[in-house]
């Protein structure tokens, strides 16, 4: 056979094979949803380890000035739903507590980062269940200083466009933050930095929805710590420090994704474009010294083989929390590295893989709370549990395993861990 014969034979074979391929669905919505999920997860992981446990002893649920209802006891009572003057259909209801217990032990309950999580269209903490609008799919959740929440979600029916909002402790919407956006919450839960997906305006909010600061800027959400907002800019723009009290700004290194709770260090993360577009780099810089010297850098397949991407510092600044890279999947790979030297202390590949969707490192810096993919093998993902794991990966289920639903090729978790 000549080369042309071989070429013809090859061409015929490829055409025959291709002729058997049938598409039985619509890739468009799946691709859009997947893109949004990837973006949301990056944002959802940001500051995951930085929110402090606060307001545990607040005796009553505190409501914003946009919420005209009087303060209500936080503990579920015989009332199964609260009035919703804003038109929201969210309600708070008792859980499975025996009614006698609820009636005789009226201890207040306020959500904290340590105990709040979402399951399907509810937010749960302690014995309280906050019922969100039926069909709400929670994408990310953060607890605020007043026991309220930042919620990013979409409805399981209709548009898959996600919406961000600040909720009161009872689950009532006090402020809509926009669609398809990103946000970060300060470690003390008193500030929310948000940017919606439709414009170039970054806004800082208080937990009651009050606007604390606003700035038109093409940069993205980085972090908000101790009265300072940090905006993440690319190498052309550079990042920016924005003092919320004075409005002063100053330049910072590009690609800033997290700031330590004491405001002294920042984590940067960037990608080096190669033919395969797959080299991920991260570093930590000292914000207290001129020119922000690097204290650690891990770059490329040699130094960062699992392609770790930091998104938050732990509460004492010992670790960076983030994800190891997984391309093409419907779950993510949890990761924790030591800030001092970049050593991976949790997650990786093979037996070290920790597959899940959302996670945070508790304030003790030794316990990871994770919405875990409990499927074996991990793909396709069919099972989800809320787990607490030590850094050496001794895990226990703290909420039971639930089956996952597959929505048109896009597997979504049912548990969502608060940031």
């Amino acid at each position, binding site marked *: *056979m000549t*080369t042309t014969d*071989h*070429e013809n*034979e*090859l*061409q015929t*074979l*490829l*055409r*025959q*094979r*291709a*002729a*058997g*391929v*049938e*598409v*039985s*669905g*619509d*890739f*468009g*919505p*799946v*691709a*859009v949803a*997947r*893109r949004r999920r*990837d*973006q949301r997860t990056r944002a959802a992981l940001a500051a995951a380890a930085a929110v402090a446990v606060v307001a545990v002893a607040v005796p009553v649920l505190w409501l914003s000035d946009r919420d005209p209802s009087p303060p209500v006891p936080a503990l579920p009572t015989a009332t199964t739903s609260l009035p919703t003057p804003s038109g929201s259909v969210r309600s708070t209801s008792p859980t499975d507590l025996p009614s006698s217990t609820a009636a005789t032990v009226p201890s207040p309950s306020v959500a904290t980062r340590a105990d709040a999580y979402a399951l399907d269209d509810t937010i749960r903490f302690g014995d309280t269940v906050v019922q969100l609008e039926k069909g709400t799919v929670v994408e990310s959740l953060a607890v605020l200083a007043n026991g309220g929440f930042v919620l990013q979600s979409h409805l399981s029916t209709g548009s898959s*466009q996600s919406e961000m909002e600040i909720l009161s402790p009872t689950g009532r919407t006090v402020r809509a933050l926009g*669609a*398809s956006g990103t946000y970060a919450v300060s470690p003390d839960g008193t500030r929310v930095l948000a940017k919606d*997906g*439709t414009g170039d305006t970054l806004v800082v909010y208080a937990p009651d929805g009050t606007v604390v600061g606003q700035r038109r800027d093409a940069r993205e959400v980085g972090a908000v710590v101790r009265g300072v907002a940090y905006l993440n800019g690319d190498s052309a723009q550079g990042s920016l420090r924005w003092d919320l009290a004075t409005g002063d700004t100053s330049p910072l290194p590009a690609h800033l994704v997290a700031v330590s709770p004491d405001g002294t260090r920042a984590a940067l993360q960037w990608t080096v474009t190669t*033919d*395969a*577009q*797959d080299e991920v780099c991260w570093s930590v810089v000292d914000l207290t010294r001129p020119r922000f010297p690097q204290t650690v850098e891990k770059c490329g397949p040699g130094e960062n083989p699992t392609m770790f991407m930091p998104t938050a510092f732990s509460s004492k600044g010992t670790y960076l929390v983030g994800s190891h890279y*997984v*391309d*093409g*999947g*419907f*779950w993510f*790979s949890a990761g924790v590295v030591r800030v001092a030297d970049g050593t991976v202390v949790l997650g990786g*590949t*093979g037996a070290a*893989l920790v*597959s899940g969707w959302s996670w945070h490192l508790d304030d003790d810096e030794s316990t990871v709370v994770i919405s875990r993919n409990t499927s074996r093998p*991990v*793909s*396709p*993902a069919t099972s989800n549990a809320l787990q607490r794991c030590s850094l050496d990966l001794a895990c226990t289920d703290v909420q039971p395993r639930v089956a996952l639903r*597959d929505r*048109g*090729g*896009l*597997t979504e978790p049912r548990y969502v861990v608060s940031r």
Partner: protein
Amino acid sequence: MGDTEREADFSAYVRARQGSLARFAYLLTGDPHSAQDLLQSSLAKVYGRWDHISTVEAPDAYVRKVMVNEHTTWWRRAWRHRERTDSELIRVLDPAAAPETAHDAELWAHVCSLAPQQRAAVVLRYYEDLSEAQTAEILGVSVGTVKSHTSRALSSLRRTMKEVTS
């Protein structure tokens, strides 16, 4: 372009082209699950840059480039955990024509064993009917490299088929 307009524009493009792109993905990967995963992840990346891509004259070329890069990236990382979903957006039916011969099966197995860049070069040249220059553009390599890829693939094919015949 607003979010709604972007999504509508992108969805219309995908609906019109997904059949062709799915076939390309299948020829690159060799199995329907991987093809589905490759196409989904590539389209997700494309959507992220849709404002730019939608303005170019030939979005297909850009999308194919993303798919080839994505597939090469997968192959380079042996530890990649590919997602396999139960829902099947891509199915591969038996060829409607004459039953597949052992020779065809061997040939297909050989195509599947080619390194990703070689295989992409073969698919772009002999299935998509692109010129060497167009193939080089998508692969991000020189025309000489395309010639070398296809020549090596054909040589290797000849050797394999001789062994099968003998």
